[in-house]
């Protein structure tokens, strides 16, 4: 489903070159539950943004559902992100001006054309399932971190994506709530068959996944 062939990402910092991702080849199949493990600064986030089509590689090829990403326009990439990929971030990244429900509905606002499901019903279903329906009209700063991350996962799921990419989703949470979030992501993979990619530096979390990809520090390789 997502294939990386010899993908590198090099940041140019003045004279210095940072090879955040170096000649990585990967194949992530539909329905996988996969962990990307590595210490801080090893290039996990960079790799994740490449897989999530937020960034283009310096060299190498990324193929998603048979399409070469380098041949897709901004509009096409945005469409893939909108329909197929759901992002979950370490710092939740909810929009503070909008309520919980509005945040969950955000991705549907960027969809061109009509959707074949009732977005409001779907949003309410997700909020109910995650136990935050009562908080739907709250603003993000009025709910706890665990609840915010649930809202973020609901937002990632609203478009029925085939992949969820979570970048250190437990990084800003205590161990207990973190575990709940991981269980939630796990259940999405088991029950809905969504491909889940979790980026983490915590070994405990990675151990629960079905497949582990280790990033090595300084070399940017897998």
């Amino acid at each position, binding site marked *: 489903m997502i294939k990386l062939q010899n993908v590198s990402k090099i940041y140019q910092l003045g004279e210095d070159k940072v090879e955040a991702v170096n000649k990585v080849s990967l194949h992530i199949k539909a329905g996988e539950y996969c962990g990307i493990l590595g210490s801080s600064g090893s290039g996990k986030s960079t790799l994740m943004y490449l897989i999530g089509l*937020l*960034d283009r590689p310096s060299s190498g090829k990324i193929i998603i559902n048979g399409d070469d990403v380098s041949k897709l326009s901004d509009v096409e990439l*945005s469409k893939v*992100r909108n329909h197929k990929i759901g*992002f979950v971030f370490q710092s939740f990244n909810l*929009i503070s001006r909008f309520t919980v429900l509005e945040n969950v509905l955000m*991705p549907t606002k*960027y969809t061109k054309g009509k959707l074949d499901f009732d977005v409001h019903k779907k949003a309410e279903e997700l909020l109910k399932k995650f136990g935050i329906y009562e908080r739907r009209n709250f603003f993000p700063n009025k709910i706890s971190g665990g609840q915010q991350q649930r809202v973020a996962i609901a937002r990632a799921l609203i478009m029925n994506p085939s992949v969820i990419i979570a970048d250190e989703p437990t990084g800003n949470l205590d161990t207990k709530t973190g575990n709940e979030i991981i269980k939630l992501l796990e259940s999405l993979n088991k029950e809905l068959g969504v491909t889940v990619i979790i980026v983490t530096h915590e070994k405990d979390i990675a151990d629960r996944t079905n497949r582990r990809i280790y990033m090595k520090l300084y070399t940017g390789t897998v």
Partner: protein
Amino acid sequence: MVMPGSGFNSSSGFGAGLVGGVEFDEKDASSVSRVAGVEYTVPLYMSTVKAEAGGNETTAYLFGVNEDYFNLMNEEAEFGELFTKSDVSSKAKVAVIGSKVAEELYGDDENAIGKTVRFEGMRIKVIGVVANTGDSQHDTSIVIPYKTTFGSVNPDKTFWAIYVGVSSKEDIESVKEEIKSVLSKRYSEDDFSITEQTEILSMINQIFDILNIVLVAIGSISLVVGGIGIMNIMYATVTERTKEIGVMRAIGATERDILLQFLTESLILSVFGGLLGLIGASLTVLVVRIFFPASISLFAVIITFAISSGIGIFFGVFPARRAARLSPIEAIRYE
């Protein structure tokens, strides 16, 4: 054509600063009319009044003149008729009104004929309507025989100007001299002035031209300053929301979506500014209306919204483009 006088009526405040303050009376009018070469003499009483008819009200210029006024101004009745010499001498309660007054009070020009208009405690019958001249002073005027003003409106029986028409252009200079010497017998020379209409017109035009240039200059500067203000606000907004922009890109917003979103915001900002300006202008006009006829045209409203939208788009494009061109990952990593 010579316009002597303009020893203004100090209480009405017209022409302030132009000339010192005598007020002419009928005696002056008749002595001016006896000057050789003068074809007709029009004494002019002028004030603003609140006119009322059938529940409608409007502010208008009231002119008290004689029948020659219409020759002098080249005015003809579009509907009804003009008043005559006998109307003047009989103090007839009749009026010829401008088309704007007719519209405000009676809905349309033709409808006004035969109706009554009330102001300053007088009831006057409208016998004629003058076609729209495009000149706001004439279109918002109520013209009545000058003798009819004697009484409640003009108890002192004075005029603030006397218009004079001459039979031939060559006579203008000599008529001017003659009128000056006639009036000098009663008034000191500093107390009145004699101006050719072309002179006074070009003078007024010049003043308005300068005023216009100054206003347009102030307006343009304000627009540019306002536009730059909006641009700065939008740049600040873009910076402040960098992370949000990154998130929106991640959940599927295209560059175009982001561009349009910020452009819309700057448009809303500038159109709101235009709206505030219009409200300010309306309040000013409401105050000015008490003294002079004034209004805001639909054209001015349209222009206001057109220009403020233009400013919003022009100055909003740069910040909106910056927002759209942010790299999604750098926006997301931004703290």
